[in-house]
């Protein structure tokens, strides 16, 4: 059986972002796979050294479009720790609200992408239609659908009035009903299960050896969630369940994410109902005293870790970012070997890759 070299990417209808996969296909089996990233490497870490801490808030948010808020939240948290300041409780609650809304729309985006990858365009249309509801809230609150500029060092910039709260509650209710569609899909739809169950299975050993985090790890049984294990922003006082699966296949990852949307809806409600009064931000000096800090948060795709070192000036001496997609990408090449060529889009889409995050 002759081996055909199938290049997927850097540009390909399957991929939303540039990623190079060189796949060797023998018949219908993938015999070899090589993964290369770096096509959207913008040198963010180097760029942050050229900008002040305040200017970097703008830059950091643009690492990724889908998880822009968690990046700026993590960054602001790190700088606030270096400054030794604490943000007001209202700001903490608003950060939680925006983080959870972002998680909802990121997971919905992914459900749609997975549906499209298996030819189920109807699910793609529905999921992205529901996602629009969340993006409309974001736009209402901050003026931007994708980049919100909601965080500043010391707190937040956006606020909720009675009208916005009513709108958000209404949207959350609508999303709750629509979520039942996706639940039914996971459980009852036979073609969906045929195309996702048993596919792209990651073993616990692989997850642990590569340090994979997030819903992908939780779907394999790893019980780690930074919101619970290292509470940040306003998460300390909120109650939610960490969803852990067991099968480690694409179906399990879809199931974990679908349940996480439900948890996020609940967290949003809690954040709104218990919204404390008070200021939105505290004053933050431009110069940051010498020091170093490590901050970890739970982005939609997993643990996001920032290391910041300051040298007493108004610009960071070093900013190091590790996004959750990076360890997942490490497993991709190994996982693809032995997979059927027809399952390739499902496996790739099933990973919820954010290449812009990985490349920085």
């Amino acid at each position: 059986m002759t081996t055909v070299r199938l290049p997927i990417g850097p540009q390909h209808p399957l991929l939303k972002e540039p990623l190079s996969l060189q796949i060797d296909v023998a018949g219908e089996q993938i015999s070899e796979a090589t993964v290369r990233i770096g096509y959207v490497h913008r040198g963010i870490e180097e760029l942050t050294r050229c900008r002040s801490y305040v200017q970097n808030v703008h830059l950091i948010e643009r690492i990724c479009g889908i998880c822009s808020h968690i990046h700026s939240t993590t960054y602001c948290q790190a700088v606030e720790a270096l400054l030794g300041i604490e943000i007001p409780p209202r700001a903490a609650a608003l950060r939680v609200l925006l983080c959870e809304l972002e998680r909802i729309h990121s997971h919905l985006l992914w459900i749609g992408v997975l549906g499209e990858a298996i030819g189920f365009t109807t699910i793609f249309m529905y999921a992205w239609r529901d996602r629009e509801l969340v993006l409309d809230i974001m736009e209402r609150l901050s003026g931007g659908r994708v980049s919100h500029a909601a965080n500043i060092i010391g707190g937040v910039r956006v606020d909720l009035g009675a009208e916005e709260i009513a709108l958000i509650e209404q949207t959350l209710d609508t999303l709750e009903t629509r979520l039942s569609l996706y639940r039914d899909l996971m459980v009852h739809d036979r073609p969906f299960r045929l195309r996702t169950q048993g596919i792209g299975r990651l073993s616990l050993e692989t997850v642990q050896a590569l340090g994979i985090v997030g819903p992908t790890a939780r779907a394999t049984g790893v019980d780690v969630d930074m919101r619970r294990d290292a509470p940040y922003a306003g998460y300390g006082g909120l109650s939610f369940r960490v969803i852990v699966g067991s099968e480690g296949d694409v179906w399990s990852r879809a199931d974990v994410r679908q349940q996480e949307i439900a948890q996020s809806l609940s967290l949003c409600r809690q954040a709104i109902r218990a919204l404390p009064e008070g200021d939105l931000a505290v004053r933050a000096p431009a110069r940051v005293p010498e020091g170093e800090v490590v901050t970890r948060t739970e982005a939609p795709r997993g643990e996001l870790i920032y290391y910041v070192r300051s040298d007493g000036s108004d610009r960071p001496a070093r900013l190091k970012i590790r996004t959750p997609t990076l360890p997942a990408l490490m497993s991709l090449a190994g996982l693809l070997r032995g997979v059927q060529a027809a399952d390739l889009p499902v496996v790739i889409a099933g990973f919820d890759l954010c290449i812009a995050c990985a490349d920085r």
Partner: protein
Amino acid sequence: MIKRKALQELLATACGLERVAFEPGMGQEWVAELPAEAAPCAIEALRTLPAWRHLSTITGQVVGDAIQLLYHCWLGRGVTLRVTLPREGAQAPSLAARLPGAAWYEREIQELLGVAFRGLPEGPPLLLSETWDAPPPLADPKEHP
């Protein structure tokens, strides 16, 4: 719940590192300063603990005349190991043989800082293109361009 003393004793027995202390720092982390070459053994020792979850990442940075490698680990709480190397001809042992997940982090430090990792499998650069012919971007001696 892991205790700092327990970690110190573990490193002493498993790797012969007698005077390594875990101090609170970097926000919520516990930080330990390791001698050069000690990182692989220390990481392996930490991995034996039931609290070990994953290696979050490896940070490389230039501080003055030295290059620091920071190994950020998650054991239910953050634990960071710091290794300091001289800037000229900096090299370190790779973790990749025992912990494959370290490979890409080391490769990134290799191409962005110029640190050579012994034992890291050959391969294309992670983020830069193969035709990159300028000095490593983060190894610049200027503090703030």
